[in-house]
């Protein structure tokens, strides 16, 4: 579908406006949508998911003391330079280090969006670092306890050696 305004560019924004029960459909390209921005409260950008997110972020801290915030150095990612306040406006991270830089501050946001703050899915082989090994160690420890309970000491000793090996590997990484 082409933009209904310019008929030149493809329409990328599709929405319906209802005023006094009268429904009007819009199919606009970004350029024309921005030009007509005054039609929509707060401008077209309000429609993006990132602005919704930024609403969440601001709500997450309703009691911010503005004076105090001005006194503190702004929280900033030292890799890409994105500040926390820029992030809360755009709703997007600048690089992978932002997650570390903003740290625990992100927990309320993740809890709201996902109902959770910790990953429990796939762990990649390489980038996952020691997580996989740690998981294996804890599984082996469990098995070792079971073997000891069943008095299978020879097996338990083998597992103990394997755990030591893995723990050494973790320490070396």
């Amino acid at each position, binding site marked *: *579908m*082409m933009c209904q305004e310019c*008929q030149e*560019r*493809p329409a*990328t*924004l*599709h*929405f*319906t406006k209802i005023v006094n029960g009268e429904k009007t459909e819009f199919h606009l390209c*970004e350029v024309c949508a921005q030009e007509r921005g005054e039609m929509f409260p707060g401008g077209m950008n309000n*429609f993006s*998911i*990132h602005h919704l*997110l930024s609403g969440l972020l601001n709500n997450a801290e309703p009691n911010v003391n503005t004076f105090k915030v001005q006194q503190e150095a702004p929280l900033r990612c030292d*890799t*890409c330079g*994105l500040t926390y306040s820029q992030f809360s406006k*755009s*709703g*997007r*991270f*600048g*690089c*992978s280090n932002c*997650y*570390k830089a903003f740290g625990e501050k*992100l927990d309320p*946001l*993740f809890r709201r*969006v*996902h*109902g*959770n*703050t*910790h*990953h*429990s*899915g*796939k*762990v*990649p*082989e*390489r*980038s*996952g*670092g020691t*997580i996989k090994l740690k998981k294996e160690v804890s599984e082996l420890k469990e098995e070792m306890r079971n073997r000891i309970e069943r008095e299978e000491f020879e097996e338990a000793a083998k597992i103990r050696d394997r755990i030591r090996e893995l723990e050494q590997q973790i320490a070396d990484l």
Partner: protein
Amino acid sequence: MSFQKFISNAISEWMNGDGQDADIAISSRVRLARNLRDEPFPMLATDSQLERVIEQVEQAMEDEAFKTRNHFEMIRMEALTPLQKRVLMEKHLISPNLLADSRKGAVILSENEAISIMVNEEDHLRIQCLFSGLQLKEAWEAADGIDDIFEKHVNFAFDEKRGFLTSCPTNVGTGIRASVMMHLPGLVMTQRINQILSAINKLGLVVRGLYGEGSEAVGNLFQVSNQVTLGQSEGEIIENLAGVARQIIEEERVARQNLMRNHRLQLENRVCRSYGILTNARIIESKEAAERLSDVRLGIDLDIIHGVPLSVMNELMVMTQPGFLQQYAGQQLTADSRDERRARLIRERLQSTIE
């Protein structure tokens, strides 16, 4: 040029209509968002940083495992005209996002178009697998496999606590977005749809129109997808969505049976009128085309219309869109002449199924 085939050929494998429950669940898609650890995310990256991402991706693509899987081709967005990009979007091979902002963007397509990997969209990599019918598990396994091959060659941004790190906080963790595109005319006609949609929202799933974010459902097509990506495993997410999809399919079947039992004549009338219009119209707008195609599709499922394969309906769904029509015509078209060509294309395609 070789990428021409991805644009000129209407049929992707997901359209062949042979997957499980493909009468109602048209397609299943799994997308994984991944980023390289050492480059800024596309929003902040400079052109040369984005170029480095492409280079690393290209190197990883040299892996033998890719070659044994399928034949892949990388297409850079800057090599395409706006119309060509639009056609790729209408085939669901790239997102509207990549179309709108394709600075240093690229897409890697498998020959059967079941796998498309967007480079430098919102994230460095968006691995997407698109299958016919309800095949979420299969789509996840395919995407997981591609992810593993990349992981051998590049350092992904991954954090012990947060999982895969993405540009948008809504994708963090698994980075997975799974969705099923469903044709639900029975639930719309019996007005059960709103009840079901609000129940879906309570389950942490979202429903969108055909092209994702911001577009409304046209032709009774709905896309149901997971919203939560952090804290659940991929398997749980897929199983949860598949379970809900199966339930919606069941509800849709019940609604259709009720319609056939209680309003058979009205239903047949509606389906056959729509078929009549599609096989005879000289001018048809895209919205009407989508609605009539939905009716005929329902008619095929309910044995009211005979001899038209579902794959033709899937094809027409894609081919009647503006980008495709213009590609087909080999020129830019005004809205009026698109409506005329759309009508002709539908007529001809449906006629070919009769002969």
